[in-house]
């Protein structure tokens, strides 16, 4: 839209930078709306969107809306109609403290049209935020949902029944990078050597397997660890064995990390695996 140089409203002229050449307002008509899309991996987070809007009549207004995504990593949407005028600034942040950066991912877009005929016209800002780290527009620094450090977290997986391997599946909507994993195997009295390996697959096809490091005899407890970029260690004086995982691995939803134990007996018992992972939101759902 071309702003007429003879715009009479002095506030409008000043705010829009007509005289000074400064300012980055975004002109919106009554048909345009702000659409906020957010996904979260932690429950109980409220995302707040706030900003200032200059109406066509020169009135400076403020807006503030909230959005509460669930914890299932499914994107949720909210739309804000601001009317005819100029969007001056915008910020997105958590309403309360406590959540780590990386627990939510939001994007703010300009759209027109209704359900089934929605048209996205511009993406203003997208990235991570929490209470203290805010997404701001203008001067936005946009990031993809798979960028940055992600969310570091410790996951305690399923404690399998006797005779069952450890297996953990990357949940829907998430991307995992396993940093380290630890699980304990207690073998029963059946006299046979077991050999433990770690394997990675996509739910059907295996794409990595670590070698067996040492025999695990009957009636013995051994702690097995696996870490990315680790040096394989076969220790002679300790009952802990360290396997290596691929460096900088990204596992998609549905991929699995598991043990593969040769000669695992019906009475052998794996503990629940404890994993340190980096998690990113895949933002792969439709909205």
């Amino acid at each position, binding site marked *: 839209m071309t702003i007429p140089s003879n715009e009479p409203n002095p506030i409008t002229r000043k705010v829009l930078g007509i005289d000074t050449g400064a300012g980055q307002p975004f002109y919106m008509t009554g048909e345009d709306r702000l659409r906020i899309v957010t996904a979260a*991996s*932690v*429950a*109980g987070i409220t995302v707040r969107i706030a900003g200032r809007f200059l109406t066509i009549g020169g009135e400076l207004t403020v807006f503030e809306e909230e959005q509460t995504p*669930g*914890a*299932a990593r*499914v994107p949720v949407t909210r739309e804000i109609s601001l009317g005819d005028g100029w969007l001056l600034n915008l910020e997105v942040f958590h309403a309360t403290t406590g959540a780590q950066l990386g627990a939510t991912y939001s994007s703010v877009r300009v759209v027109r049209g209704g359900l089934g005929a929605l048209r996205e016209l511009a993406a203003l800002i997208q990235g991570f935020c929490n209470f203290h780290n805010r997404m701001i527009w203008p001067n936005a620094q946009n990031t993809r949902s798979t960028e940055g450090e992600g969310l570091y*977290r*410790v*996951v*305690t*997986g*399923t*404690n*399998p*029944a006797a*005779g*069952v*391997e*450890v*297996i953990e*599946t990357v*949940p*829907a*909507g998430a991307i995992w990078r396993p940093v380290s994993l630890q699980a*304990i195997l*207690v073998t029963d009295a059946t006299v046979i050597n077991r050999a433990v390996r770690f394997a990675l697959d996509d739910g059907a096809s295996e794409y990595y397997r670590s070698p067996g490091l040492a025999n695990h*005899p009957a*009636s*013995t*407890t*051994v*702690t097995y660890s696996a870490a990315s970029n680790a040096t394989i260690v076969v220790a002679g*004086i*300790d*009952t*802990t064995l360290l396997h290596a995982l691929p460096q900088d691995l990204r596992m998609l*939803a*549905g991929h699995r990390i*598991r043990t593969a134990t040769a000669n*695992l007996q*019906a009475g052998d018992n794996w*503990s*629940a695996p404890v994993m340190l992972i980096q998690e990113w939101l895949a933002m792969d*759902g*439709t909205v």
Partner: protein
Amino acid sequence: MFLECLECGGRYQDPQPDGLRYYHVCAPIVIVTVERAGARIEIPRRELAAGDKPIGFRLAPRSNGRNENSPREWDNERKRRRKAGGAVEIDPPAPALEPFASASEAR
């Protein structure tokens, strides 16, 4: 809350201590190919008998395996699936066993 899967017997915690949800997936079963009495057969690993000669194994999904990952469903739908008889709440598990300080103490 600690839960036990009625299908595979796995025990898990949901939500996790960090507040995130945990979506349990039943572990697959291991089917072992063995030579038994001169014939090559496939049996579940738990049915291995003395004298069986294992040749190889493969993973097979459980026929009624549970997968709490519902890519585009809400948390209340996941809870509904649990209420339908998939899992029951149990007491928190005992701490994991400590390994022996040295291999010699195991004997």
